[in-house]
């Protein structure tokens, strides 16, 4: 048992230890009803993190997710009256398109993904400010309930939000492990140069990965918007840090190639438990960002594959 063979098991061990610790401090944490609510609450973040997993898996990053979610909250609120549940399609298309453009700019124009996605995020912010007229908008309650009220019902005791999350997880997992695209993702993440040499259309794979990241961010934004029954250009701010944390503590390293969406599910649960612990320990909400920033540094340091950096860390 060396450290390297143990490494893939870190995330769930961490989760288990944290759950036991929090449970010992506060036995009511295990109350199924409360736990279910806690999990339903974190669903938008989970969906965003799941999309981000694809971008990180190929060794990139997507810093536009938060802004994409923002613009979608505005789009959903503004166009709910016109399209009803159809806004979901528009939202996902917007996310997919923004992601694809980021991917195109990264692969074909050679702009590093952290710059291209940051820049596309600001284009999205422009759009959100324009559509919302820089005001906080709210949804018409009846329209919202007619189109999306079912999201907050329960099926056989399970909140529908959780079921949506599980369906998306199953879909992403299938895509990642059971399709040619998934294998190509793995090839690109494990060694881009080798993937190019073996004749794989690496650019296409990467563009699709960023597009998926955008589409998931849009779904997250849509759910968040419906949840809060409104939209504005800053509504989803604060999601970016937590989404990156969820992916990295889950065990998908910044260098890509290993991990995946199931890891991100574990990572999101870790984020949830840390949050719950902070509430219980009465750590002020203002300190959350600091705590998660430090968790992020620790998670990167533990998971990153330094052999891939070839001695040079820029």
């Amino acid at each position: 048992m060396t450290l390297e063979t143990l490494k893939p098991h870190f995330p769930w061990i961490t989760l288990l230890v944290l759950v036991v610790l929090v449970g010992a401090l506060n036995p009511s944490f295990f109350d199924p009803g409360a736990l279910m609510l806690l999990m339903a609450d974190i669903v938008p973040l989970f969906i965003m993190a799941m999309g981000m997993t694809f971008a990180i898996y190929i060794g990139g990053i997507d810093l536009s997710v938060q802004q994409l979610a923002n613009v979608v909250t505005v789009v959903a609120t503004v166009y709910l009256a016109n399209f009803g549940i159809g806004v979901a399609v528009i939202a996902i298309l917007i996310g997919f398109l923004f992601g694809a453009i980021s991917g195109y700019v990264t692969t074909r124009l050679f702009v590093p993904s952290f710059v291209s996605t940051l820049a596309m995020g600001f284009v999205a912010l422009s759009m959100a400010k324009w559509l919302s007229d820089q005001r906080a908008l709210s949804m018409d309650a009846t329209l919202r309930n007619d189109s999306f009220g079912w999201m907050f019902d329960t099926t056989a005791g399970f909140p529908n939000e959780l079921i949506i999350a599980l369906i998306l997880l199953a879909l992403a997992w299938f895509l990642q492990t059971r399709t040619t695209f998934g294998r190509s993702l793995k090839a690109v993440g494990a060694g881009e140069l080798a993937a190019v040499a073996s004749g794989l259309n690496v650019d296409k794979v990467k563009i699709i990965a960023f597009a998926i990241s955008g589409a998931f961010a849009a779904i997250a934004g849509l759910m968040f918007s419906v949840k809060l029954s409104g939209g504005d250009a800053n509504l989803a701010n604060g999601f970016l840090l937590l989404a990156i944390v969820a992916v990295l503590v889950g065990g998908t390293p910044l260098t890509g190639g290993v991990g995946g969406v199931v890891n991100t599910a574990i990572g999101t649960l870790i984020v949830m438990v840390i949050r719950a612990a902070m509430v219980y320990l009465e750590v002020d909400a203002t300190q959350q960002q600091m705590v998660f920033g430090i968790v992020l540094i620790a998670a990167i340091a533990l998971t990153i594959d330094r052999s891939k950096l070839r001695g040079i860390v820029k």
Partner: protein
Amino acid sequence: MSSSTAALPDGPRRISRETLVKWAPLLVLVVLVLLFPLFEWLEDFRDGKDHIYLLDSRFLSIRNFARIAISASPALMVAIGVTFIILMGSIDLSMEGTVSVCAVMFALMFIGMGGTLASWAFLAIPGALVVGAVMGFINGLVHVKLKIPSFMASLAMGFVGTGFALLLTGGDRIRVEDEAFRSLLTVRWFNFPVMCYVALLGLLVAWFIQSRTTLGRNFYAVGGGEELAKASGLNVNRVRIMGFTLAGVFFAMGALLAVGRIGIAETATGNGFMFVSITAVVVGGTALWGGIGGVWNTLIGVLIVNVINNGMVVIGLPNWVQDGTLGLLVIAAVVLSTDRRSVSFVK
């Protein structure tokens, strides 16, 4: 990595790609300065008003230039800080957090020690610079010692910084109302407030560091080719950590000017600096790959960004256009400054 940059002996009349890239930022700035008055002229022409192109422009007035200089000063300091990092081929995304922490720490020290420059409170100024240096130093340590790519190390440190600033203020705004300190904005020499001259001084110091010190030369050595620099005996890690520390000091300068400008220190003081400064550096012609560019490029870049922001308001465009424009501009600038032949793949 780098392509051949040797000037071709034949055909001196042909403008090479290098020359174009070198002068493009200045050209863009000049075009912008001529373009916005043109829009004004067109509008007045349409309305049938008398308007002599350039002479009657509201954009091309001393008063408006002072406005641009005021908004550019804090951004210039922050952008200069990150210039050193980008010259090394790394990136620093921690500025929002660092600026907030420096601003808040400055305000707390300043008020704690008397609240006016005429007392011991002036020590808060070097104090803030030290805070910036310490933040930058930690940032550099995390990046170098934990071997985390700089964009991620600094992004995470930025989050920690913003969180720390929030912890210090508890979400409150701290007012700095001392007249002597606010003279940074209120006292004007030749139509421009004092803070513009402070920023200019900062620029000259940065230029001196870049061109006349070993550290400055080392930034270029690391950015031009890290392995070569290492092989020739340079302690690259030390240069990197010193670079991040220096950047932290300039972020603190930016924080001081930002507080001087608004008179308030809060967690949100740093908001917006990340994108503006990165855009400015890249648009100014400093290559993201390192080794090319410098603080004068950054001056041009900061001016381009601020002229665009200001000019759009002058010609009556809604302010949401700015974010998107800068987003597209930064992509265009990176594309223009990238030599396709020398880049194999990009993450």
